[in-house]
């Protein structure tokens, strides 16, 4: 992380805007159905391993790549745009 990035990160945390952006993102991901899709992916994995204890790490490694790919471009664009206008 560069000095600039650290400062931006600190400023966002300090003002509470980091949480606000997170909340906005969370809301968008729910609205577009992303959360439900990811939940389904997790269910599938738990079912595949039926009976065996599936750890959080297993879920993270198996689900993350697919979950990332499922985030709609419109959501990414909106967030990026808003963070940019907010920072400069």
């Amino acid at each position, binding site marked *: *992380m560069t000095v600039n990035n*650290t400062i931006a*990160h*600190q*400023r966002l*945390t*300090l*003002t*509470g805007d980091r*949480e*606000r*952006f997170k*909340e*906005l993102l*969370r*809301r968008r991901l*729910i*609205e577009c*159905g992303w*959360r*439900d899709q990811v939940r*389904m992916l997790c*269910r599938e994995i738990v079912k595949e391993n039926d009976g065996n*204890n599936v*750890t*959080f*790490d297993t879920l993270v490694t198996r689900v993350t790549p697919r979950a990332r790919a499922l985030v709609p471009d419109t959501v990414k664009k909106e967030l990026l745009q*808003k963070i940019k*206008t*907010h920072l400069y």
Partner: protein
Amino acid sequence: MNDTGCIHLNNFKAAKGTNPYKIVHAFFVSCTSYEARRYKATSCLCFTCGKAGPRMHSCLHCIFFACYNGHIQDHSKSKKHFLYVDLSYGNVFCAQCQDYIYDRELTELSRNYRVKEAKALGISVPYTPWLPNNNEVMALRRLRKRRLISPHTTIGLRGLQNLGSTCFMNCIVQTLIHTPLLRDYFLGEKHKCKTQGSGKCLVCEVSKLFQEFYSGAKTPLTLHRLLHLIWTHARHLAGYEQQDAHEFFIATLDVLHRHCMNGVEDTEKKENGRCNCIIDQIFTGGLQSDVVCTSCSGVSTTIDPFWDISLDVAGPGSLQACLERFTRAEHLGSAAKIKCSNCRAYRESTKQLTLETLPIVASFHLKRFEHSSQIDRKISAFVSFPAELDMTPFMSTHRRAVEAADNNNAPEGVFEDNRYSLFAVVNHLGSLDAGHYTAYVRQMKGSWFKCDDHMITRASLREVLDSEGYPDLSFCSRVVNYHCWSYK
């Protein structure tokens, strides 16, 4: 995994209590104060690699931050400290079990801090899924019967018998039954009544009605008792020849709001002088009126609560155009001078209405009926409305920002979300004295039904938006989570 934690966490709690978790959560997970945010901003870096993540955790045993991949594991080996709090979510990781541990008590604490943080930052409280309590878990175990909620379910739909020109009531009842948050309130049996069984409480009556709608039975219901109750408590409505759905809607909300006070927990529910009952929580917004004196430019502002927005129908157009007209500054003219407190004289002025706060459910009433001493008539102009509506342009803050801005950089609220989505429409067909009301309601996302007294038929969104009956009332709810998946 159950929700009673692991032996390591339980031993830790027995020895140290929940304080270490509370401190970590309040300062580094949810940041309930400015001071906490300052700590988090400056000191939440990995003690090993100096980075700010990913997946920062804090040791529960000592002051130590580290990222999940490797560095907390190193710490747990060298220091024999096994419990860590995830600083993004507040979950507890046990290095001995090598997994996150569910603990009901800590989950509950975490939730409370989250709510506090959201309130401190002025953002909506993050959605948390329903967490059944012990009684509910038991009840679920006992009840083996399961109902599958799929896009094709018709549960929650029931026709209503016409008791002789009572279609106005049927439409309003269908709308209320399909108001998302109201449904959650009533199906959650949140109204604990002091008048239990007296038969005089409308909130209790509506509670019963919800049970009837969701019982799975299909026969049409008759609403004698409900109508009688509303007429008893809103006497101005009783015995009218011509019933108006909008008037009935407002009267029903009013009686419900008054009867909410019968609730054991609702009696003293007031926040800064405003009623906080379920009706007001869902339907109340604030209408701002600014009167500007044309001589001294002094502004006098008043804010009044509202349950619906009544809009003039000037001719064919859209809901947005009606709202645009509704919030436009209007010159009051020389015939309507108002006393200016600044000038201490009667002056010409302009008046502008804007929305100061938005309700969760916005109800729009199109004023189609014109009553005057000479003539009663209905304005039958088609007014289109969108499935999704952004209310931002009609808000007080937005109007101020637009006026204040001399360039295009209006300080728009980046985090504001004022979008609404349509969930019910009430139509009036025919003439003023020989008319009939029908309603369209949304059962689930994308699933619409037409309610014509005892007849319920599936409808498409297109049909709803094009409804030839000229919408009289439309109801929009803030965009919330509506996704429904069928599990095979």
